[in-house]
């Protein structure tokens, strides 16, 4: 009995050492630079990193859900409120206080509306000026951008 138990113990120890060496060599083959006994540390680090990444993703998602609809609502409100404000003051001043309060943009939106109107107006003006310049160049027959090439072509034709 004692001999059998001793052989059993030796067998388990030999098997365990062999398996531990196999695990370690497998880890080395997989490119893990640390020894196998340190893999618990790596696992703990990986778990921590995963938790941190999840927390960061959750934070980003939550903040995105909060800000995106607000920004969209502001943009829609600005677009809707900007043109009628001028017309509404002249054409329909006889609305009730509550109705006008509902139609009026918030302070932020109200402050943004003239800026956006001015910006869009400036953009339209510059576009019109550019188009007018192009039209005049085309009308003259030699667009300024192509003037050097036109000169070169006329020189070569004369030769």
């Amino acid at each position: 009995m004692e001999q059998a138990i001793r052989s059993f113990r030796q067998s388990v120890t030999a098997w365990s050492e062999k398996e531990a060496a196999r695990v370690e060599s497998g880890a080395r083959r997989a490119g893990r630079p640390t020894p196998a006994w340190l893999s618990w540390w790596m696992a703990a680090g990986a778990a921590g990193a995963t938790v941190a990444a999840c927390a960061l993703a959750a934070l980003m998602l939550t903040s995105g859900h909060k800000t995106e609809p607000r920004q969209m609502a502001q943009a829609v409100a600005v677009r809707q409120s900007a043109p009628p404000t001028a017309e509404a003051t002249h054409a329909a001043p006889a609305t009730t206080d509550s109705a006008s309060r509902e139609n009026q943009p918030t302070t932020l939106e109200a402050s943004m509306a003239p800026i956006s109107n001015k910006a869009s107006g400036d953009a339209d003006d510059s576009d019109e000026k550019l188009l007018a310049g192009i039209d005049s160049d085309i009308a003259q027959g030699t667009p300024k951008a192509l003037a050097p090439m036109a000169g070169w072509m006329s020189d070569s034709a004369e030769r």
Partner: protein
Amino acid sequence: MAATTTMPGHISEQWMATKEAPDRADFDQVAREYRPQIFRFLLSSTRDAELAETLTQDCLMKAYRNWNSFRGDSRVLTWLLRIAINLQKDQWRNRRLQFWRQTTTNAVDVSEAGNWLPSEASTPEQQVAARQQVKLVWQAVEKLSGRQRSIFLLRHVEEMEIAEIAAAMGLSEGTVKAHLSRATGRVREELGGRQ
């Protein structure tokens, strides 16, 4: 006790004497020192190298997380083995559930487990006899209940004292003795019946 002879450094004995939990930085040394024993116990309990490796990792991670709660009331190895035994219990419970989902296990057969034998035996006949004995012990261990198997392995493979096994298993010494007696009797029967 033979288990202490396998532990170089005896850091646990120093901690026991001071009754102070070691620094977190010392855990690397603990993991390096006790990992082979935890792995061996789990391998002999499960006969599944991959599962034993996973449970060993889990055990060390759990120990690392709860390192500050260790107050040196027992040896570090006893504390770690208690964690390992609890993880193994959870695994048994899960495996029972997974049985119904047709989940297979990577555990090797007892005859295969018995093939591992250091070439200490002088003659081929002695080697064959030793291998046969080991297979019979594995067959007997296979038939034991989970608790009896753990107690048998802790006593005869890890060579722990009854008091330490009781601490690791969370049982009284009397219960451990009773289970160990039954387990040893089963093994003796298996060896006697076949020899």
